[in-house]
């Protein structure tokens, strides 16, 4: 790609102090992205070691690499099976789910111009919860077999999104309208789920409650493949709109004046992110905290450029979810605490710390 590079810009031919400060900031952005990816790789190696079977960090990495390079990396078959069939799918599922929720929270906050927007506050999770309630109590589902619950959660999550997107398409609907509608949907489906709980027997109740708490235990390689397939299509489509999202945080009027069709981008982003969220929550249940907070963490560290912010929100979301799951599994082992509870317990103090220490006094205004 041949581009005219005019790096030296003032009359003396030297870059000014401000330009150098900006260069350092851009470098810091890239460095941070690389650092959090490295962190997640290290975290994966560490969390694999946690569990009833004693596995060292070196063994964990050897086991992971043994399938790709069987001649170079060898571990005993039991370790290999535990790593590949039990511990690694859960971690990969956690990384994908955290990534998806972080990315979707980030883009939803941008198009709705609201720091409180997230898959949870838009009512998508409570829609999925209601879908579970319908399947558990009434036994009514779009799919049978292993996808009895998942199919319903997916469908109802999409139904909620369709309502919000339908509202967004109405001329004159503001982002505040959409947030309020999301909150209303949240209350409505929560109330409906409560109603179903009231009439549920013990087994149905257990099913509903455990799904509502959010858990990564359900991940298998087949589910991960589905999730990965959806992400491979949807995340690049969201990344394509990074510039438009940068501009839309300045308001629809400004966005239009700089060439962004704000209404169309809002519907586009909500449509794709809803598909991602519905796919994630139907596998994991309600994990509320990640989609709200990961984007704020990324924004505090990286600033407002969505070309960096979208992937960083995803990777931070993945890190928090995987770390929280590691703690959830091992804090009072052998009892496993539901991941959804632990994400909030681990994430909120960290978020509060960032808010109080924040490099920027006002990261949203």
């Amino acid at each position, binding site marked *: 790609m041949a*581009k*005219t*590079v*005019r*790096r030296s*810009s*003032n009359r003396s031919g030297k870059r*000014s102090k*401000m*330009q150098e*400060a*900006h260069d350092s*900031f851009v470098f810091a952005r890239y460095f941070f992205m690389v650092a959090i990816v490295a962190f997640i790789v290290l975290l994966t190696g560490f969390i694999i070691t946690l569990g009833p079977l004693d596995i060292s960090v070196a063994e964990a990495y050897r086991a992971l690499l043994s399938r790709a390079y069987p001649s170079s990396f060898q571990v005993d078959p039991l370790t290999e099976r535990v790593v590949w069939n039990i511990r690694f799918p859960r971690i990969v599922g956690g990384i994908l789910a955290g990534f998806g929720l972080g990315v979707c929270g980030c883009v939803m*906050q*941008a198009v709705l*111009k*609201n*720091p409180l927007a997230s898959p949870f506050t838009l009512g998508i999770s409570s829609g999925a919860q209601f879908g579970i309630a319908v399947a558990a109590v009434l036994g009514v589902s779009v799919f049978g077999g292993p996808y009895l619950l998942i199919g319903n959660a997916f469908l109802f999550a999409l139904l909620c999104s369709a309502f919000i997107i339908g509202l967004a398409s109405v001329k004159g609907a503001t982002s505040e309208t959409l947030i309020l509608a999301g909150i209303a949907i949240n209350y409505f489906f929560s109330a409906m789920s409560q109603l179903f709980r009231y009439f549920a027997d013990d087994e149905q109740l257990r099913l509903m409650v455990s799904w509502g708490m959010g858990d990564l235990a359900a991940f298998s390689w087949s589910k991960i493949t589905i999730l990965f397939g959806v992400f491979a299509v949807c995340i690049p489509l969201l990344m*394509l709109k*990074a*510039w*438009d999202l*940068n*501009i839309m*945080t*300045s*308001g629809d*009027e*400004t966005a*239009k*004046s*700089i*060439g*962004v*069709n704000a209404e169309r981008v809002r519907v586009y982003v909500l449509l794709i992110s809803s598909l991602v969220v519905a796919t994630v929550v139907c596998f994991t249940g309600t994990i509320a905290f990640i989609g709200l907070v990961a984007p704020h963490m990324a*924004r505090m560290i990286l*600033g*407002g*450029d969505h*070309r960096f912010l979208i992937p960083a929100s995803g990777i931070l979301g993945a890190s928090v979810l995987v770390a929280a799951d590691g703690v959830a599994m091992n804090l009072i082992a052998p009892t496993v605490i539901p991941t959804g509870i632990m994400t909030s317990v681990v994430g909120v103090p960290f978020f509060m710390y960032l808010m109080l220490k924040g490099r*920027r*006094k*006002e*990261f*949203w*205004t």
Partner: protein
Amino acid sequence: MMIQLQAKGIVFGYNSSPILKDVSFEIGPSRLVTIVGPNGSGKSTLIKCIDRILAPERGSILIDRKEVTKMDRLEIAKNLSYVPQSSARTFSSNVFDTVLMGRRPHIGWLSSSDDEERVWEVLRLLGIEELAMSGFAELSGGQQQKVLIARALVQETKVMLLDEPTSNLDIWHQLDVMNIVSDLVKKRRMTVLMALHDLNLASKYSHGIIMMKRGRIMAAGDPASVLTPENIEAIYNVEVAVRSQSEEPFIVPIRQIKPNGSGSKPGGRFFTSGKRRSRLPRSIAEIKEIRLS
């Protein structure tokens, strides 16, 4: 005669209440034209209709004789830039990133060094390079206004629209912003159309003034011909004295005039009866064909 910006019969309304009623004008290149008028007269709405932020019900807008209504958003943004009154941002970003947004119509997903260099040039031109890494939300009103002008400037358009750019600024910053805009017109040969409340600023800096009331253009021309006591009294219901200050009209407000014809002094204790002014003087009856070239 060259025409840079032309509006023909623009009609706009919310629901059934009309805001702009058949507004037409022509502006030549390298002109600074100001729209003045009371609150609710349609100044900001007109500016937004020209930039297609609002879609007029009828009428056409031409830039260099090209029809704006037939352009897509990106093409409009390459021809017209817009500086809003203020930019209430949900999430703060630094000044450099805020200004770089203005390059959106010209770039793909990646910004090139050339785009970044244009941003630095504009920041230097407006004297705000040292603010490049500051958060937009941390800036004063005057600094924010300059950043918004910088963002519009990097769009590299021939026509710039500004919506009351001085409304939240102290007198020093008002002059600062107006001097910047005036320089752009002179040195970059831009055409600027701005809505403004301050008649004296409009008088000092404009080549032409459009005076609006209730969605119609009531007077237009050079400052001396538009900013007359009769016009101001009829449009604003304010009695003024107009003095000449280095050939520009200088307006001194004297008192309000009640729409029913009675006048009041500030404090409102003494009322004096005034002439009935329910009808506009003939000299400023609605004007349809305006050329400010």
